């Protein structure tokens, strides 16, 4: 069984019936196209995605994604809140990459402010972002395996996800949507014992990743369902603006962490997994390998974690530490100003791109000199990657459709914002 089908109907395909029902059977096959709706409520769509699909028998001839079912007007809400209070709102865009959303926003604000981030804060940000990347890829793996039938992967992998969420809870206080990244650094330093727990986690993650690979990598069913299916040539993907693991699976080694390093990524030694065919199996393999590389980055960052402040020094932008409020009048005044009105950002426009688990998260921020953003827009990778989906599933079976949708890794929160 393979996904390649000939789309040309040759003369040999014309069948001549010699039965009384001939006039019915003689109908033009084009008229047998059936348009049905996948979703928005569907167990296999990863979120509320509606796919208007035109089928001929079991073969998909065309599909049209319809989105907007979880549009929350986050960008408009951000215009109403000052820069500090907009961070929790922007985190909820792509809800499986909340640190990335927050970093794109904070990075954009810091670029406008021309604020320098201390090294320790950068390393802490990198550690949390890489943990988030592992988290996101794990959830992708679990739900994809669930879609493809390997249901027990869900429970196996959730062990690791719960460990990561425990790590987040230990350092930031919350499992999801942590509001940990602040403009100027991070909200708080990591507690004692966190680095050790993190190392234990990465060690365990590598072992467990080996176990997951043992279940899935050479699994006959997995290979048959993913190999040679859903491949789109790399130049078509570039035309469609696709980035992230989808592009890397097609063979284009584009990763912003290596191409345009930000936030001290140049200090770490890691590889970018790149696929060859661009089919579903390569997408799976690229993401699994990325989990491994992220574990490496986390270990290196923990080894080289510098001492120092965890947030920038500029009291006009960053809240003073709590203990100073009891002794220093200026600290009290700064705190008051920052919490009520917020800091003002010089007017200008900036576009801050970072590499998230699904591709390029680009935050466009326009400031008009006041304490609230005048326009905040996230160029979300899932939104753009979804445009490649019809190309991926044309002329495949419905089962391949489900598998390809799983491998696409759409997150509707980011698509709809």
């Amino acid at each position, binding site marked *: 069984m393979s996904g390649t089908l000939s789309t040309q109907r040759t003369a040999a395909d014309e069948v001549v019936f010699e039965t009384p029902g001939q006039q019915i059977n003689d109908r033009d096959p084009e008229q047998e196209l059936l348009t049905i709706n996948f979703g928005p409520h569907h167990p296999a769509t990863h979120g509320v995605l509606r796919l208007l699909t035109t089928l001929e028998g079991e073969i998909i001839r065309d599909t049209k994604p319809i*989105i*907007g079912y979880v*549009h929350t*007007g986050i*960008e*408009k*809400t951000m*215009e*109403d809140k000052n820069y500090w209070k907009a961070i929790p709102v922007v985190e909820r865009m792509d809800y499986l990459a909340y640190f990335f959303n927050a970093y794109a926003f904070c990075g954009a604000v810091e*670029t*406008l402010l*021309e604020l320098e981030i201390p090294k320790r804060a950068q390393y802490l940000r990198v550690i949390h972002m890489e943990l988030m990347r592992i988290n996101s890829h794990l959830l992708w793996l679990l739900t994809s395996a669930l879609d493809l039938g390997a249901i027990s992967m869900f429970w196996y992998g959730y062990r690791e996800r719960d460990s990561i969420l425990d790590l987040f809870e230990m350092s930031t206080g919350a499992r999801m949507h942590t509001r940990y990244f602040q403009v100027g650094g991070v909200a708080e330093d990591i507690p004692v014992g966190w680095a050790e727990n993190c190392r234990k986690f990465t060690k365990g993650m590598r072992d467990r990743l080996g176990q997951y690979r043992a279940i899935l990598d050479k699994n006959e069913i997995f290979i048959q369902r993913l190999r040679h299916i859903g491949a789109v040539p790399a130049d078509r993907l*570039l*035309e*469609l*603006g696709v*980035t992230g693991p989808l592009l890397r699976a097609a063979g284009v080694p*584009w990763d912003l962490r290596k*191409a*345009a390093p930000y936030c001290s990524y140049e200090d770490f030694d890691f590889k970018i997994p790149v696929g060859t065919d661009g089919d579903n199996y390569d997408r799976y393999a690229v993401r699994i390998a990325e989990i491994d590389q992220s574990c490496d980055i986390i270990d290196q960052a923990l080894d080289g974690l510098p001492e120092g402040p965890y947030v920038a020094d500029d009291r006009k932008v960053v809240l003073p530490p709590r203990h100073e409020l009891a002794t220093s009048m200026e600290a009290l005044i700064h705190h008051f100003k920052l919490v009520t009105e917020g800091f003002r950002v010089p007017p*200008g*426009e*900036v*576009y801050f*791109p970072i590499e998230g688990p699904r591709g*390029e998260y*680009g935050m*466009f921020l*326009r400031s008009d000199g006041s304490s609230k953003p*005048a*326009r905040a*827009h996230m*160029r979300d990778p899932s*939104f*753009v990657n*979804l*445009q490649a989906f019809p190309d991926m599933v044309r002329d495949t079976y419905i089962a391949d459709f489900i598998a390809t949708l799983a491998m696409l890794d759409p997150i509707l929160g980011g698509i*709809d*914002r």
Partner: protein
Amino acid sequence: MPDATGLELLAQELRDTDADAVVATEHFRGAAVIEIEPSKVTWVLQRLKAKGFTMLMSVHGVDYYPEEPRLGVHYELLDMKEVDRVRVKLRVPTDAPQVPSVTPEWPTADHQEREVFDMFGVVFEGHPELRRILMPEDYEGHPQRRDFPVGGEPILFTYNDARGTDYTQ
């Protein structure tokens, strides 16, 4: 990012072809921005593609209220070989919000232009299917314009409980 001189050379090249295409250039925080005439957007982007900026990363809209012309559309271009970015922006007034669509040459702009239309009301001429993408099809208004109210509901507490959940009224 092309530095300031690179930006000026780029803008000069564009001006050589069409004198009034480039309205302004700006080099802010290390990023290069070219502001152009709205009607020239297709050939400017093609020109930049020929110069190496082959990827259109983002098309998004901005509302510059109260400055006129109000609605802006930004195109983020990326040169993968040199790792360079340049932003092309244009501004249209609300009473004539037509902009030529770049979707035929840049397929990635399909959904993104629909979003700009949905949220700001910029009409992209030549777009294969310009309809609302995030809001319901029959929604009236363009939500992300600055004069559109944020909206919202009063929170239901016990005192307004009885009035609040009765959706039949």
